[in-house]
């Protein structure tokens, strides 16, 4: 099968394809008839342009209109955007989305790496059993999980508060009304769903690290912890970046969990996320134009974040050499 090298080389390809293109010659086979390429990408592009790109372009267009269902659109100029920037709900949504993102991404990263390290070191029986278990949360229905977690996090009678009550002096936490507690509830659902998946990704990367590196390290007198810190972690840089980027794009689009808790994102919009805000403008407030403007704003935010991620990636992999 494919050889793994401990150096960066191939593994960087998916993360920064634009970068590798400027550094290496084009991949691909010159001797093959390139014109087949057009046929090959045609079906993809046809569907993609019609159903993927066109709606987005149209969205950009209607963002300049005021448009309620069953009525004619009226041109609105930049009004939607001006109102958006002054809309305190928009800024709340940004705060909430980032807070939930932070609460669900970083602890998850930490947990995933730690557990992957543990799973790697033991010579377990039934490895594939454990690995299957890790993916069960990922295939559980989102709607179902929201119901379960709502019960578990109930303010008076939820299991978590019942357990907390055993600790003297600790009061019941309201996991719906509180800003951070509600974010914790949502972040827990997200973490529960994805941590197993990420454990497996880290596990794979760890298994790719050749044993010789560990052997030479322990010969040099490194402890297990030092080995982890100086051998394992550096080799995981790319994987961490990958997980971060994917987690970011996904995290900025959290929708189903907050909506199931409360369709308006909470009584003081404490867990209103950006995509829920968009959805509500379109389908609760019947403002199609305004919703489109929100969509554009979200896109810009995602692009900025991705650019930042990309820049960080560059720095990290720059150092890694």
């Amino acid at each position: 099968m494919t050889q793994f090298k401990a150096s960066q080389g191939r593994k960087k390809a998916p993360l920064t394809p634009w970068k590798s293109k400027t550094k290496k010659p084009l991949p691909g086979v010159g001797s093959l008839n390139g014109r087949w390429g057009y046929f090959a990408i045609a079906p993809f592009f046809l569907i993609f342009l019609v159903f993927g790109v066109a709606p987005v372009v149209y969205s950009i267009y209607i963002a300049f209109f005021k448009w309620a269902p069953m009525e004619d659109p009226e041109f609105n100029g930049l009004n939607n955007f001006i109102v958006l920037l002054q809309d305190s709900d928009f800024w709340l949504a940004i705060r909430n989305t980032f807070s939930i993102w932070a609460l669900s991404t970083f602890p998850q990263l930490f947990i995933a790496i730690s557990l992957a390290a543990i799973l790697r070191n033991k010579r377990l029986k039934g490895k594939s059993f454990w690995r299957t278990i890790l993916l069960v949360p990922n295939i559980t229905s989102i709607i179902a999980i929201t119901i379960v977690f709502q019960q578990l996090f109930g303010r008076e009678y939820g299991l978590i508060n019942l357990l907390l009550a055993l600790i003297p002096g600790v009061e019941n936490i309201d996991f719906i009304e509180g800003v951070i507690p509600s974010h914790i509830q949502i972040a827990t659902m997200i973490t529960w769903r994805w941590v197993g998946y990420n454990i497996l990704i880290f596990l794979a990367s760890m298994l790719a690290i050749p044993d010789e590196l560990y052997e030479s390290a322990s010969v040099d007198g490194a402890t297990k912890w030092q080995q982890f810190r100086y051998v394992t972690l550096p080799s995981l840089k790319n994987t961490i970046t990958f997980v971060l980027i994917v987690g970011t794009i996904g995290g900025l689009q959290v929708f189903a969990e907050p909506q199931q808790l409360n369709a308006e994102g909470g009584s003081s919009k404490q867990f209103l996320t950006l995509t829920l805000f968009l959805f509500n403008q379109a389908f609760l407030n019947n403002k199609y134009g305004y919703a489109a403007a929100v969509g554009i704003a979200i896109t810009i935010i995602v692009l900025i974040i991705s650019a930042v991620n990309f820049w960080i990636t560059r720095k990290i992999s720059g150092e890694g050499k």
Partner: protein
Amino acid sequence: MKRSIASKTLVGSLICASVTAGLLTVPAKAAEPVTLTIWTFGEVIQPALQREYMKLHPEIKIVPIKNDVDPLHQKTILSCQTGGPADIIAFETPYSGYWRTGNRPKCFQDLREMKTSSTNAAAGVAAGQSALDIKKNYLPWRWEQGVAFNDSVIGIPTDVGGLQVAYRTDLFKKAGLPTDRAAVSKLWPTWDKFIATGQKYVSKLTPAEKKAGKAFIDDAGSIYAAVMNQGTVKYYEPNNTDAGKLVYKTNPQIKTAWNTTVKAMNSGIGARLGQFTSDWNIGMNKGAMATILAPAWMLDYIKKQAPDTKGKWDIADLPVGGGNQGGTQLGVTGYSKNKQAAYDFLTWYLAPEQQLKVFKTYGLFPSTSVLYDDAALLEYKDEFFSNAPVGQIYTKGVLQLKPIFEGELQRTIDSKFGAGLGRVASKKMTSEKSFALVISDIDKLFKN
């Protein structure tokens, strides 16, 4: 061998023969099968009556699709744009303001143009009746909630919420309060007295009970809706245009309702259990609340969720008198392919006779005012609630109500106030700040 083959052939041909015979004797003329799709919520369409109708008319299949109220509204909007699948749609009265104005009434069939066929004549619904003919059976202000501003009748009323106070006789006794319903009703002719009674009740709770979250009323926030509905104007003032005039900033009833509710919240009489949450269900079983502001339709809910409390409840009058919560109109969609069958079903289902049955089995209080003199309604008692004459109690409450103008964004504005009160209850904001936020949130609805 030969014999068994022979017998198999015999059996085989007998089977073939009987199948063929069966196919040939299909009933000479079955009525054309019709499927009626109804988009509804909660208990608006009762399964027992639905089954009864299907028995009366075997060719009709009724398929109710249940949704939550707000998603149902969204789907109705979407389906109007696509000519979507439902034949009958229910809309709650707070949303009636939306459907009755603008160019939205076209989403529904004008029922003045429909006439009942003879199909239900035997069951008491005469043929040839249009909406205008059956109007007289209904409480006038409930009827108006289904009439659009271009005068087309887009929906017929189902139940009327009616609101009274369900209270726990055993818990009242423990707190030294009277338990007889007339005496209890006298305890609180005003909301202030209701709050005072609540404070008295809470003062008698043991510290352990207080810590466990027990209180007088399940959710003090429910007082807001009750007080609002006792007025004559909510968020829009009628001014002879279909839109009405927005008065959410000036209507004094809003401030009254808000302040009363905040007072109740601050006096500690609420257990802060949101209605229909799991905490609320559990709380009901544990005696976490001694009173619930109960529309008629909630009584059955209490019975199902807390069966062990049977006989421990009774029903008293609402402070001030006259209360309403909820109520629905059923309309036929403008794009339905089965308008006649839908209209026939509606006129049967919403006829006084059927509505009385609905009340007796499920507690939904009918809008068919012709029943309000009917002994069958007035004498009906409910065992679960200490044999309270619920028919009489709710009739009284309903007759005290005055109609309220419902504007286009009635429900949306209402939910903003509800959220605002929620913030006060959870002590996240002061009353003034929360109220200001409510107003600015509502302002946003009209900005673009």
